[in-house]
């Protein structure tokens, strides 16, 4: 059985205890999107400022477990200031790190997204251990799915 240290790496606990980019942004101009994990009741709110194809600012609200909160915190630090294109590429890379298990859980094997080899996940690599705990994968991907929703909404406006 994988140990707890595979799941709760120090950097994850650090982001959980000291979440980055917590708060709200004025709506509009910011886009506000909400994500829910029906399994555990976790809720995440992302406020997203997108200007000229760049994620100029974002803030995270809501509440959840250490995995969902630290993933959101790391996500916010990773995509803030990046272009929408880079943010989407990073989302694909992160979900690919999780997706082998997620897609096999959902029963649609083979639907692995293309990954840009230049994308560096950095601290986010610490969440790799989550795949050993399949029920927690959705905790880790919640903020990323919500980000995708926000980027889509920003693109349509």
């Amino acid at each position: 059985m994988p140990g707890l240290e595979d799941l709760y790496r120090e950097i994850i606990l650090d982001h959980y205890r000291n979440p980055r980019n917590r708060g709200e942004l004025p709506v509009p101009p910011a886009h506000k999107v909400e994500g829910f994990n029906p399994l555990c009741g976790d809720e995440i709110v992302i406020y997203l400022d997108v200007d000229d194809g760049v994620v100029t600012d974002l803030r995270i609200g809501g509440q959840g477990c250490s995995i969902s909160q630290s993933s959101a915190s790391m996500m916010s630090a990773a995509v803030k200031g990046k272009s929408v294109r880079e943010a989407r590429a990073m989302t694909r890379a992160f979900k690919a790190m999780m997706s082998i298990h997620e897609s096999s859980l959902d029963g649609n094997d083979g639907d692995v997204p293309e990954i840009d080899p230049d994308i560096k996940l950095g601290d986010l690599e610490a969440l790799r251990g989550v795949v050993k705990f399949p029920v927690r994968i959705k905790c880790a991907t919640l903020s990323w799915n919500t980000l995708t929703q926000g980027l889509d909404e920003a693109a349509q406006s």
Partner: protein
Amino acid sequence: MASLDVARIKKDFPLLQQQVDGHRIVYLDSGASSEKPQAVLDAMDEAYTTYYANVHRSVYKIAAESTERYEAARQKIATFINAPATNNIVFTKNVTEAINLVAYSWARANLRAGDAIVLTEMEHHANIVPWLMLKEERGIELRYLGITDDYQLDLSNLDQLLEGAKLLSFTGLSNVLGTITPIRQLADAAHAAGALCLVDGAQYTPHMPTDVQALGCDFYGFTGHKMCGPTGIGVLWAREEILDAMPPFLGGGEMILDVRLDGWTAKEIPWKFEAGTPPIVEVIGLGAAVDYLTAIGMENVRAHEIELTAYALRTLNERFGDDITIHGPDDPCARGGVLSIAFRDVHPHDISQILDTEGICVRAAHHCAKPLMRRLGVGATARASLYIYNDESDIDALADGLEHTATFFG
């Protein structure tokens, strides 16, 4: 003296004899589903291996025996809840289906736009969503009894909410708070206002002696898998004249007396509500579960759970003081063995992950009661729920696990 010989009862449950990663299983999630005793497994195995055939169809010997055992289980179940007659017992998949049956059959035949149904803020989603669906379809009105700060139903405006209402539908025992609701009082108030009364007995019947006649309600639903029985079998009990007047729910074989190309005639109750081949072996399994619980004695089950809940509340509060909040009534005699725990600032999902490494099974979630969680101001709780096979050592293991959780998350 302890009300139950838990050491002996534990031996009846093969799953609890196992070890996971070197730990004995400390199963504290019976509110979600109970484990199964060997007697139930044996009864189901015997059915499949010695006399299994479809019911109510054929004259050959094993079909007759299958039908006889199936209907004998219905009789046992009727006796278990003191139903006035066996034909009041309608088999459903679970309580969710029992409530949906009432919503689709009784409510759609009797309610019109503007009619009101009264629910409470402590309901499981199963007793909210079917009514919300009806509200969207028919334009009925939903009203909610609130909750007091000491986790009881707020009855101060009960009569006002019941004014002109057609149904009062509520849980007998909250799956989150453990609160036991005043069923008889609520049923009487509903009747005085001209409304019928439905009780969600999912958490009540597995843990309390159930007498539907004494409770005074009109509809009562409960489920097998939370009371040592298999999944896939639940029960709707209702007063006979109400069942008689209700239109069928699902159409198909088994529920008809006659079918012509231009029409059909339904069977009498309860079969008119049981379309298609029923879960035969599950019904027989639930009958065996009822035998098992009856042999233990439901009064003893209740007494045991009061003792163990008292021990759990005392132990957890003494060991963790202000670090722990248990959302629910303080008095063990006024509640069931459901402990919804908030512990320091650790998220319930993380608590259950740490506990899992020690073989301790608790549920971490909103427990299918999101409106209630919002009312409590929490997103989720870690819930330990007790049953006949739990004892003080399980509570001690939970407390030790919480100690480790505190250490881990600093």
